[in-house]
């Protein structure tokens, strides 16, 4: 009789254990149409246009060639700037200066006679309030007939770039030309006092720019 009781208790415990191990039915999560399930959570889907994607592509750009022309009346000044990771170059009037990052400082290679000399300088502390094409935002632009123009409300943001040297200068008529993946050209006017300078910045050779430092 005692064995029978023990058998009932064991059976009861076993039933209890089996019952507790049984899986729950899975919960089905349904996201809204403009959402996507990420890690069991519905998140809003941001669908970017090709134009907006170029702004993302410009971030952390570390290899490119930037050709800048500044036109004042009939006179055009041309500058070619190259960035190749930790090296860069600045060429104007057939003279090229080179820069290489050296810790918190920069090695500046400048032309002397037929060759070059190097000086180590503190990295520029100009600290422009506006880091130019890195700081442009897609929402600032308005498309007109396939062209992208900076809305007038944001001219002052871009003008910040020039304030350290030209306080009170203004920027106007900024047009952004985009290529397949990146910006290809930025055109704008800078007015200093009563003189207007027409700027054109053309970005090329992205990922293909090679800066070779001169031998000393």
């Amino acid at each position, binding site marked *: 009789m005692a064995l029978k009781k023990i058998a009932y208790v064991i059976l009861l415990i076993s039933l209890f254990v089996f019952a507790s191990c049984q899986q729950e039915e899975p919960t089905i999560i349904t996201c809204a149409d403009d959402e996507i399930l990420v890690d069991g959570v519905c998140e809003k889907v941001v669908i970017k246009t090709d134009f907006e994607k170029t702004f993302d592509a410009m971030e952390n750009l570390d290899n490119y060639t930037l050709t800048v022309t500044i036109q*004042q009346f009939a006179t055009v000044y041309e500058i070619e700037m190259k960035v190749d990771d930790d090296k*860069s170059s*600045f060429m104007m009037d057939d003279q090229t200066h080179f820069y290489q990052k050296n810790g918190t400082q920069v090695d500046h290679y400048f032309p002397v006679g037929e*060759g070059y000399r190097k000086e180590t300088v503190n990295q520029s502390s100009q600290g422009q309030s506006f880091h130019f094409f890195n700081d442009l935002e897609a929402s600032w632009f308005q498309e007109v007939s396939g062209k992208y123009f900076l809305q007038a409300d944001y001219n002052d943001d871009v003008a910040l770039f020039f304030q*350290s*040297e030209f306080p009170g200068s203004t920027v106007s008529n900024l047009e952004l030309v985009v290529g397949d993946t990146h910006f290809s050209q930025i055109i704008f006017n800078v007015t200093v006092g009563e003189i207007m*300078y027409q700027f054109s910045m053309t970005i090329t050779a992205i990922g293909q720019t090679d800066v070779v430092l001169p031998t000393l």
Partner: protein
Amino acid sequence: MKKITSFILLLIISIMWVGQSVQASMRLTITTRETRFVEGVRHTEIVGQLEYEGVTSNQVINYIGANVSLYDDLNIVVGDNYKPHDSWGRGTILAHMDDIHERYPNYQVIGGVNGDFYNTSITNLNGQPQGGYIRNFEVIASGVVSTRPLAGFKDDGTTVFGVPCYSGYQLLVYDEDGALKKEVSIERINNLPTANDKVTVYFDNYDLPISSAHNKVIIDAKETKMDGVRYFGSGAFDSMTEVDVTVADHTFVIVGTDFNEDGLITDVDYVVVQRKIGCGFEDVRFAVGVYDEIVTDGVPVTYLEKGLDPAFKHPRTAIGLKADGTVFFVVVDGRNKPLGMDGVNLYELAQIMVYFEAVKAYNLDGGGSSTMALLNEEEGYDILNTPSDGTVRAVTNGVFIVKGEHIPRPAPVGFPDPRIKLDRPMNLYVDSQGDLRFDPVLHSLSYMVSVNGTLLASDDESFTLSLEPGEYVIKVRALADQLNYKHSDFSEEFVLIIHPNEINRFMELLKSFLQEEIKD
């Protein structure tokens, strides 16, 4: 006692009589007299009546003068508009001033007058001065009339008057610094040398080939002057040959056995062929031909056997020297009686020069040539007198008072030159402050910086450039003591483009941006 009193009285009367005899010969009654000073040069204009030997005339007299022996930065120079080759040529004294400014940036003409008499024939000799003419130590003209005196001006401020003497031709070879390397005697012109140690020169008026086995050094002439009797030539080395040559236009050829085998004339040297001048004119930097001596030891001439219409009234120009070293010019207007400009004869001119305290004076070309000009407040020039032609006449040359010191003439260095030439400055660049920098040169005392050809002095290897926007070609040479070491050659040229200030600031912004773009 009575005798003594009578003697003293007689002496006083005789002294008064002698004094009156000098003074009484001319009386100048002044209507107006105005004097002013322009950059240290005195200008006086007198309008009045001149009475000389019983004849009264109306006169307008202009005087300019300066003490060039006292002030180093006031000097006398000559100017002309001679063509480099083939003929002489004339110009107004205003054009002569332009010529001076072009030749010598260190001088600013303050004022001056017309110079020598000249050839007026319608030939290539038009404009040839009748007397000698020395321009910056070069005897350009040696005088059609050998007895014509010169007024010469030395670097120490002394003025030399007199008839120069000439003794054959000389070849002067100067190095690139203008230091005399060697003087070679020229045996004759347009003829072969008569001996192995002789040297001759052929000018381009010699049409035949020079047929000989001599060495022939061809000089690319900067300037040639010749009239078939007298010659002058200057220029630079072109080539050397032993073969027969014909003298090309605007060249001259130095001929001699083995001449220049020693490398005497190199392609950086400058050579001059000229008549060797003497009799006090050896160290004269500038000289102009004058004519009659009208004041001697402070005494005006009262009779002249020669001279151009000495007894007739004309417009006249004269140059005078005072006892204190002041050189002055006088122009008396003439041929214009309605305006009170009767003109003077040479004796009256002499009296006027004494009136202005001349101890020595000579007349220059006069008549329609008489012209005097002076710097005005607008940095232009006023013609002070009334030229009788009604316009300023083109004349052979002029003589001028200038402000500015002479560039010292380097001491002769001899040949072969025993000095060691300094190394050229290297590694020119302009630093971020806009200063020109270069590597120092051993044994240099200072440096000469050439900016688009304008020469500037620098004490050391850093030179502050203050340049307007533009493109500049810059080169530098190291300067030596010229005794043991000689100046270096110029460095390689360095092209510097100066942009407007705003563009420079844009560049700095972009450079700053660029530095921030490079990553670790």
